[in-house]
């Protein structure tokens, strides 16, 4: 399946544009993080340092992703 991944905070310095990724069926947010780390070692453990969101809603990192999902990794925030 094909998904889109978005990175924020200092991670956006490594990938400012949304990333298109191919994932096997049944893959979870955690699997997406492992695949990201394979592409760029600086992204290792991103699912531990960030909250995950799928299609603009927070979710747990053991949740599965689906075709066309937009997965975002949300570092600790600093709005306000």
């Amino acid at each position: 399946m094909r998904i889109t991944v978005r990175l924020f905070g200092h991670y956006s310095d490594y990938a400012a544009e949304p990333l298109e990724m191919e994932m096997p069926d049944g893959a979870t947010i955690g699997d997406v993080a492992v695949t990201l780390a394979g592409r760029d070692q600086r992204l290792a453990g991103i699912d531990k340092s960030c909250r995950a969101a799928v299609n603009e809603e927070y979710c747990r990192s053991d949740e599965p992703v689906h075709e066309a999902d937009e997965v975002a990794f949300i570092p600790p925030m600093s709005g306000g």
Partner: protein
Amino acid sequence: MCRIVREAIDVRALEARVSRVANGGIVTFVGQVRELSRGREVDYLEYDAYVPMAEKQMRQIVVAARERWPVDVAMEHRIGRIELGEASVVVCVGSPHRGDAFEACRWCIDTLKETVPIWKKEVCPDGAFWIEGEDAVEAKELE
């Protein structure tokens, strides 16, 4: 009532959105860019957001506030480059009575800081830093 904007926030226009005749008071919180951050001198801030999710989270804050208090709420957060003393966020709460307005306004800005995906980059004389919770992470390059 909830927007991420790139231009200066018009505080009076936002207050007008919660100014119904049923409301006896309006409480406005204005967050603005401070010259010192944890002892570090700041030149200006660059805010970034996951815009659609940020606006969605802000709308959820308004819904939750209205379940707890009899209030009208409007809020805007600015992103992009913001200079010292300029507003980065404004929360306006109107209510029949001031107690509910003060409480709800405090709760809305506190919750925004916890749940709305927005990040600031502090641009300082000695470099630029992403602020991620308690951490300041050196940014790759100055824009």
